[in-house]
């Protein structure tokens, strides 16, 4: 297990290193000079040069890359070109919206998918199963930002239960904050719940064919009892893997949903930074998201190997 973990860890570090080079390279080919952009078209060349030097843009590419990566390793993400505030502070502020949103959506997705998947598996081939499967087909086909607009139309504009956008903040209490994240979280959770319900159903159906399930039935348990006591626990392994992967997807996938609801999260930060050529912010947020995805994948791999020893020898 230690050898496997080390190998996976090494591959994690390598992935992160390559990812950082790729992100840096993409940003480098971006047209437009941040200093010129910040000072406007009437700026004097010497003013632009001074600002370039202040921002460190006159250094070589390698030097800039090393400074960026070295800074991130110590928690220093640099200073925003536009706002002149530390990028790490800006990201931390936005994480207070994006992270709870992703967690909220993940909780909703699990709450919807588990009962739906179990219900469908227990009634395989019957109308209940077909209804759930039909709903999941629809769930994966609906673009979440469109679903978000429909939610706004019904629950914000017509029923006036929620606000149509914006974030109340956490200062007025947990309730207000959660309320403004509810519609975005539902919109974000829907396609994920559809996928998760399908995984749950097929994992349970796989388990139902196993010998130990036949034994459970043979000793007198009803189909439903066997499913609850023995099936569910075993089916959870693939389901937990998908949940792990979905978390990082939700964090990154919130970008468009944040646009729909004007939420001040990481997604909006990236869009604002891209349009104002605040490249250091773009680099850092994208790197952070990639870091989250790679790390979650790594942890999922480890957890998987911990419960299923066969996997350790396979890789």
């Amino acid at each position, binding site marked *: 297990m230690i050898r496997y973990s080390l190998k996976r860890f090494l*591959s994690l570090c*390598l*992935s992160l290193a*390559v*990812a950082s080079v*790729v*992100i840096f390279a*993409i*940003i480098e*080919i*971006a*047209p437009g000079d941040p200093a010129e952009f910040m000072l406007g078209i009437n700026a004097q060349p010497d003013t632009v040069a001074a600002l370039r030097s202040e921002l460190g843009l006159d250094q070589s590419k390698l030097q800039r890359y090393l400074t960026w990566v070295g800074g991130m390793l110590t928690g220093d993400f640099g200073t925003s070109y536009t706002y002149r505030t530390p990028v790490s502070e800006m990201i931390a502020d936005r994480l207070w919206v994006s992270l709870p949103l992703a967690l909220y959506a993940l909780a909703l997705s699990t709450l919807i998918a588990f009962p739906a998947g179990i219900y469908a598996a227990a009634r395989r*081939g019957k109308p209940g199963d077909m209804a759930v499967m039909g709903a999941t*087909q*629809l769930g*994966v*086909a*609906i*673009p979440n*930002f*469109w679903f978000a*607009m*429909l939610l*706004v*139309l019904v629950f914000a*504009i017509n029923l006036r239960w929620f606000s149509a956008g914006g974030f109340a903040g956490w200062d007025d209490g947990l309730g207000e904050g959660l309320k403004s994240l509810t519609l975005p979280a539902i919109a974000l959770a829907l396609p994920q719940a559809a996928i998760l319900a399908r995984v749950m159903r097929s994992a349970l159906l796989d388990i139902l064919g196993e010998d130990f399930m036949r034994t459970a039935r043979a000793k007198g348990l009803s189909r439903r009892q066997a499913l609850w006591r023995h099936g569910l626990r075993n089916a959870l392994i693939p389901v937990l893997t998908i949940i792990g992967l979905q978390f*990082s*997807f939700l*964090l*990154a*996938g919130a*970008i*468009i949903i944040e*646009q*729909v609801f004007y939420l001040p999260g990481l997604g909006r930060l*990236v*869009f604002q930074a*891209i*349009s104002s050529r605040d490249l250091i912010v*773009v680099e850092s947020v*994208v790197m952070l*998201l*990639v870091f989250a*995805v*790679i790390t979650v*994948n790594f942890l999922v791999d480890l957890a998987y190997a911990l419960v299923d020893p066969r996997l350790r020898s396979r890789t």
Partner: protein
Amino acid sequence: MSRNLLLGAILSSLVILAALLSFLWTPFDHTAMNIPEKLQRPGVVHWLGTDHFGRDIFSMIMVGARTSLAVALVAVGIGMAIGIPLGLTAAARKGSWLDELIMRGNDLVFAFPSLVIAILITAILGPGAINAIIAIGIFNIPVFARVTRGAALPLWQREFILAAQVAGKGSARISAEHILPNVANLLIVQGTIQFSLGILAEAGLSYVGLGAQPPTPSWGRMLADAQTMVSLAPHMAIIPGSAIVLTVLGLNLMGDGLRDWLDPKLREART
């Protein structure tokens, strides 16, 4: 043919027909503004109503289908053109450094949050249909490479491949002549799935303003326009969204149906 396949094929054909027909005919000029008739509900003259500039929504949906299908199709083409040879090579050289390099490269692309990188690419290269195609296409490459490799690996153990080797064929020729035809079914199914994901991705990029640029209509762009009008004219949001859902649903159903149809073993296992 299963019910899924039939329903999926009908839905997909309708969208493709609408897109093709739009080259020859649309009820109105999709760019023609007609302010006095703005925000009309679906009716006899404008079947699906008009938008805030009085443009005919049915015509825009038809032309928008063209954009969605073209972007997704070319993106799948990119994924297949690069991913399949990579997958075939990795399978033919299983365990070699080349296989390792291709698969680790795949893992790396998978690790990038695709939406974020697609947004980054289109934001940097400039918004537009071509850059959206590139951004979506890149993430199709590892999908096809992985599916091809996975399906090709067991084939390399089979007798007919051994016979081809004995006959003196090289691994490239075996891959092209014997492996590829045998994994084609699976690739077609995957292609359908990626096609539907491509349509969703294109809609998302257009919605945030990074896809096809006006006056080229696209379904995502229409939704972005509808956002501020949603309380006044809900049909502006409901219609393009429904077009996306029906197209993606059709393609997914077709993918599922094709998989069952092409692999009877799976059909038995599923029911």
